[in-house]
């Protein structure tokens, strides 16, 4: 082979300018990636985040080791650090999802892993190879961002990146050239007679792999490849899989609503859902709560409501006063009693977000002792205001209440026909239906119940909402004004059982006016009465409420809600009865990560009017709860710790045994390993005396390493052991003899050894027994390193 003329390795490490330009490239690419990841986030936050990461990398680069020889690959330990960095997004993601409830889709995790990889390479930028890899990583990040982001700033970043990238290419090329330029006085050519050239296995594998991939692509066709590649992407689209953290894609519900993709069906563009043959809510009520009946009158006829009579006499009744718009509280038992697992109906909508949740459908105003009448529509003080960006529609009160603690986000995916109702949570702050940003598309039903204007709510759309959660502590300070005579939601039945008012007074008297009284009523109802779906009032009962409160003490949820509303009205609070859907946490589907809502979730509750006009939920039915503000991050962590502790206490014996076993194994790992090695040596001493000596030396090498005196690769066993043990080796002792044998075994070729194989095995056995780990530790303690 011809001699290879090379220059000595005097190549400098990467110049600072190249490193700085690489950092700038990564900053641009990381910023673009952050913008692409969450486009709705404000730009300064995205850029700031990217700057933070790149800044950390720059800081790390100051402390990173500099290479002795830049031509060599970086130390393996540094590569390990880089690999850990790239794995970090996948490790952090489950924690983010469980603690904060937000997450990135898999492709973004991959991109962040690549970003971390690039930053890791920048940390070790002293090696020219690392600088190049960092540049390649930044290029991929930039391409990814430009491909998926629509933000105009990303284009600007791309322009700067291109300009800077040209400079970077020039600098890297120049750095590569510098490695071959050495000062003329230091130029020395050495003749290196290399061994036979190695076959480039890696390059061969790459070429073979590339050729095989091309052949496979040609054989199966691009469509199939695309389909297989598609399967790898976890979207909520055509693969059948669903990932709530996935970005939108073809056939995704979100995109269907937006209608911005020609391949999506664009349901909002059609009127196919306008006419619906599905039964009305009242039919469902009859199914669930039983058919209403008219009680047999024992007393003289009740005096007519003067107001309704006047209305009746002067003009056609308002929509809410029509005969079919009322809810009698005298009902027969339902034909099919509610069972927990009896939820076969198709979901009306699915809720993503925290539960429990009350979704209003119908509000009732007047109660005549037996039946509730629906409240009039379109009588609200709240306004729809379209936000300039983001297609959000905001709800604005003239005098908002100061009782809210936090904002909660939900998504309602409409899966079944539900009339014009737009399901929303209480205390709604704003909502968004795809890109529908005109307020004319929505209208008010009853107060704080939103409907689609002049059309039914199409199936398939997603309603995103942000609502406020009430802080129970702030409620105490909230004022609940006394309603003026004659206004809505305050009227009591003329024939109201006086015991009911007395009962309200009795329950509320110990408390000051306001939320404490309301809470007292609510808690007494929850505590003293029993929820019974099959309970019914007697046929001749003219006062179903009195029967529920004083006689039976059991009834379905509408009786609780009626009782709460009437009791609160008798105390002078503006109250209404609301029927709607209760999104129960028990119905959460962990597979789809949604809570489906079906007809069986129909529920009644009461609401008290707040000074702003908003309505506060009063939930008197036992077993039903109102959504409370979520715990803070610390509370969640504490809760998970407590959960762990609870689990641990339940498995105390197994856990203790396991911990003791693992702890012992870890604590005495060396002893265990040594015992195993000794046993191995006894059973398999080796096929000849050289192997026997070699195995004992390996054991000694382990022990020396564990005792803090590892053998360096440039040391022979005798040199190492004599250095480590210094004066502890007596002449002709077993270890002294072993060291002589070690030399013979390793370097004497086929010279006849001056000892017998039996003697060698004896000596080996003695060394194994007399030089355990403890002795190594004692002998090497305090002595200088070998």
């Amino acid at each position, binding site marked *: 082979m011809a001699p290879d003329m090379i220059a*000595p*390795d*005097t190549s400098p490490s990467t110049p600072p300018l190249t490193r700085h330009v690489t950092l700038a490239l990564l900053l641009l690419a990381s910023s673009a990636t952050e913008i692409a990841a969450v486009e709705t986030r404000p730009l300064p936050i995205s850029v700031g985040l990217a700057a933070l990461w790149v800044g950390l990398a720059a800081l790390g680069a100051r402390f990173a080791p500099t290479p002795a*020889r830049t031509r060599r690959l970086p130390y393996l330990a540094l590569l390990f650090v880089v690999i850990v960095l790239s794995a970090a997004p996948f490790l952090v993601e489950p924690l983010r999802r469980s603690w904060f409830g937000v997450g990135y889709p898999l492709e973004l995790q991959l991109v962040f892993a690549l970003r971390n990889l690039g930053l890791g390479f920048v940390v070790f930028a002293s090696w020219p190879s690392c600088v190049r890899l960092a540049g390649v990583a930044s290029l991929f990040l930039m391409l990814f961002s430009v491909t998926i982001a629509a933000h105009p700033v990303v284009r600007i970043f791309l322009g700067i990146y291109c300009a800077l990238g040209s400079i970077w290419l020039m600098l890297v090329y120049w750095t590569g050239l510098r490695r071959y330029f050495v000062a003329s006085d*230091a130029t*020395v050519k*050495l003749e*290196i007679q290399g061994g036979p050239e190695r076959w480039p296995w890696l390059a061969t594998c790459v070429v073979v792999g590339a050729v095989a991939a091309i052949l496979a692509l040609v054989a199966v066709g691009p469509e199939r490849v695309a389909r297989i590649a598609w399967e790898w992407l976890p979207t909520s689209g055509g693969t059948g899989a669903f990932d709530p953290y996935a970005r939108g894609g073809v056939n995704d519900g979100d995109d269907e609503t937006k209608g911005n993709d020609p391949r999506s069906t664009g349901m909002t563009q059609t009127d196919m859902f306008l006419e619906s043959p599905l039964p009305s809510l009242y039919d469902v009520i009859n199914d669930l709560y039983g058919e209403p009946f008219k009680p047999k009158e024992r007393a003289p006829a009740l005096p007519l409501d003067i107001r309704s009579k006047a209305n009746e006499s002067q003009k056609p009744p308002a929509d809410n006063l029509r005969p079919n718009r009322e809810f009698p509280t005298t009902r027969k038992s339902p034909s099919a009693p509610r069972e927990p697992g009896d939820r076969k109906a198709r979901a009306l909508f699915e809720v993503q977000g925290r539960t429990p949740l009350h979704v209003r459908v119908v509000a009732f105003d007047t109660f005549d002792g037996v039946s509730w009448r629906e409240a009039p529509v379109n009588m609200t003080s709240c306004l729809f205001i379209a936000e300039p960006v983001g297609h959000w529609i905001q709800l604005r009160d003239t005098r908002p209440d100061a009782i809210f603690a936090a904002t909660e986000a939900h998504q309602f995916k409409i899966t079944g026909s539900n009339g014009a109702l737009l399901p929303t949570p209480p205390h709604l702050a704003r909502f968004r239906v795809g890109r529908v940003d005109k307020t004319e598309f929505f209208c008010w039903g009853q107060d704080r119940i939103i409907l689609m204007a002049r059309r039914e709510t199409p199936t398939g759309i997603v309603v995103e909402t942000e609502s406020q959660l009430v802080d129970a502590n702030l409620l105490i300070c909230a004022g609940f004004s006394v309603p003026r005579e004659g206004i809505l939601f305050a009227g009591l039945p003329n024939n109201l059982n006086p015991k009911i008012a007395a009962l309200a007074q009795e329950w509320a008297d110990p408390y000051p006016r306001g939320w404490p009284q309301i809470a007292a009523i609510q808690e007494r109802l929850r505590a003293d009465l029993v929820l019974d779906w099959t309970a019914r009032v007697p046929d001749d009962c003219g006062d179903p409420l009195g029967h529920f409160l004083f006689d039976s003490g059991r009834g379905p949820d509408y009786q609780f809600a009626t009782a709460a509303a009437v009791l609160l009205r008798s105390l002078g609070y503006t109250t209404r009865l609301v029927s709607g859907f209760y999104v129960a946490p028990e119905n959460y589907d962990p597979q789809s990560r949604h809570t489906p809502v079906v007809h069986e979730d129909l529920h009644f509750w009461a609401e008290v009017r707040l000074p702003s006009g908003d309505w506060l939920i009063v939930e008197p039915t036992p077993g039903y709860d109102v959504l409370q503000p979520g715990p803070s991050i610390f509370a969640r962590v504490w809760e998970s710790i407590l959960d762990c502790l609870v689990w641990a206490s339940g498995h105390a014996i197994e856990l203790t045994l396991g911990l003791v076993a693992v702890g012992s194994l870890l604590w005495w790992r060396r002893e265990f390993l040594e015992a195993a090695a000794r046993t191995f040596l006894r059973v398999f001493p080796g096929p000849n005396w050289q192997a026997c000596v*070699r195995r004992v*030396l390996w054991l000694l090498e382990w022990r020396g390493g564990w005792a803090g005196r590892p053998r*360096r*690769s*440039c*040391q*022979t*066993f*005798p*040199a190492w052991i004599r250095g480590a043990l210094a004066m502890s080796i007596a002449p002709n002792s077993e270890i002294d003899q072993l060291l*002589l044998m070690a*030399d*013979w075994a*390793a*370097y*004497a*070729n*086929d*010279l*006849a050894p*001056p000892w017998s194989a039996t003697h060698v095995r004896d000596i080996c056995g003695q060394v194994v027994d007399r030089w355990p780990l403890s002795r190594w530790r004692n002998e090497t303690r305090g002595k200088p390193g070998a």
Partner: protein
Amino acid sequence: MNEVSSILPRQGQKVESGGIADLRSLLNRALRGKPGVIEQVLACLLARGHLLVEDLPGLGKTTLAKAVAHGIGGRFARVQCTPDLLPGDITGFSVFNQKTREFEFLPGPVFADVLLADEINRTTPRTQSALLEAMAERQATVDNVCHTLAPTFFVIATQNPVEHHGTYPLPEAQLDRFAMKLSIGYPERDDEVELLACAIGDLTNSPELSQVLEREELIGLQERVAQIAVSANVRTYLADLARATRAHRQVTLGLSPRGLLIWQRVAQAWAFLKHRPFVTPDDVQQVALPVLSVRLGLAPDATGGVLKQILESVPVPV
């Protein structure tokens, strides 16, 4: 299987009874408190190499050379190298014999058994190069006539590392002919006290030197050293070390194949002195410093730890 006893007796027996041991004892008497240096001199002698001693004046360089010469009983010659020294002053020259009417060759100092070239760097390169052939091939060519030197021809050259005025640094080709470069160094305090005590009453300040080794005996020992086994893994280790010297950033001139051969031979001699019939990597490492320091060219910015780095960079075979 080789017969070990033909090379070296079993452990515990004295191989060099009356031979190397006596020579060692003699040298230790001549140069007190430097047993390590003496061992290396012995290794160099047994390896049939030549020795360059670089140290300050008065540390015993000449004493050591004379002691070696006396010990092995050969003819001792000394050349005090000066700038006006001519090559013929070393190799010898032909003179016209009036009686026989023929040119007659008068052998120079190189025909001695032990040649001490004192302060070799003070003579001109022309004269230095006169030693090249003698050291490498143990022959001297004068007037187209090749003269074979003594089989035990052994050159001990000295040079002063601090005085550079009027000196001619030895060229690389010359340096590569030496097997080792040694530095004696100052003796320890106790050794100096003993030295002073021995000098009392001694007029010449020179120890009594006597022949302890016959020439044939030395040749026999050198032949036995050459037979010391070097296993394949140690040979590979040596080759790897040689390559490492050539690849090191601060080494401008790596180890030549001739240097590698000398290294192996010196390691064999070292193993022989340790009563071992084979060479271990420890032998290689222990003689690395004197063998490499004479022939490696180091960069101006090289630090003292280059040889250590080279030795640490190559894993030993185990």
